[in-house]
């Protein structure tokens, strides 16, 4: 029991050190490091896609191919559930 507590405390300490480093190295709020793509999309989305909703313009227009993959994932999820839960008739 003692060993488990010591091991747990050790793992917790290591994780806490990594979290501390990531908190110290985090970007300041509202100031991303690489913002060229964000600025382009924010500036051009209303002219190029004619949409008020920038998120939808990214999901279905700029990254439409990614959404095609998402739809495929949904299809394969349905197929997997049908395979697992189907009832075998004897």
């Amino acid at each position, binding site marked *: 029991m003692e060993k488990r507590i010591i091991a747990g405390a050790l793992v917790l300490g290591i994780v806490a050190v990594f979290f501390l480093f990531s908190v110290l190295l985090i970007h300041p709020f509202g100031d991303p490091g690489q913002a060229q793509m964000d600025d382009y999309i924010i500036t051009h989305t*209303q*002219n*190029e*896609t*004619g*949409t*008020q*909703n920038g*998120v*939808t*313009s990214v*999901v*279905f*227009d700029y990254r*439409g*191919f990614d*959404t*095609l993959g*998402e*739809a495929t994932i*949904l*299809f394969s*999820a*349905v197929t997997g*559930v*049908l395979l697992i*839960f*189907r*009832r075998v008739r004897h």
Partner: protein
Amino acid sequence: MSEMTKIVKTTANILFPFTMIFGLYVIAHGHLTPGGGFQGGAIVVSGCALLLVAYGSSWVFDRIKDKRLAAFESLGAIGFITIAFLGLMFSAVFFGNFLAGSGSLFGTTPATGSTLADFNTGGVLPLMNFAVGVKVIAGLFVIVLVMAYASSTKEWG
């Protein structure tokens, strides 16, 4: 899954139309407000799952044909791909937005900056939202129904 008491059924009766309207609203206004085909479809299916819980699986199996759900899922996927290939045909880019700014269906270009939302904008985005919405409704409802079918003794499909 057996049916539940009259209290649950009455609550489901009241909540079901509002859930449907909200889900279809989220799908239809995907290019204006937060949400879209995926989110709205999940909301609609949560309403259908409410019916499944309240009325029991055999009540739903009598009214829903799995062949039709499969057809709807295929219809959504085919519509999505078709719009993508129409973009390839008309604007030379796969998933190209050939309707945006054309002045026809969904073709109005909004003024740059913070403006009032216009439903008739977005080009192919509303159509894609609709196709994905149909696909998600059919797909998730098939998942929910098949899981209910696995725990019931009734024959279906």
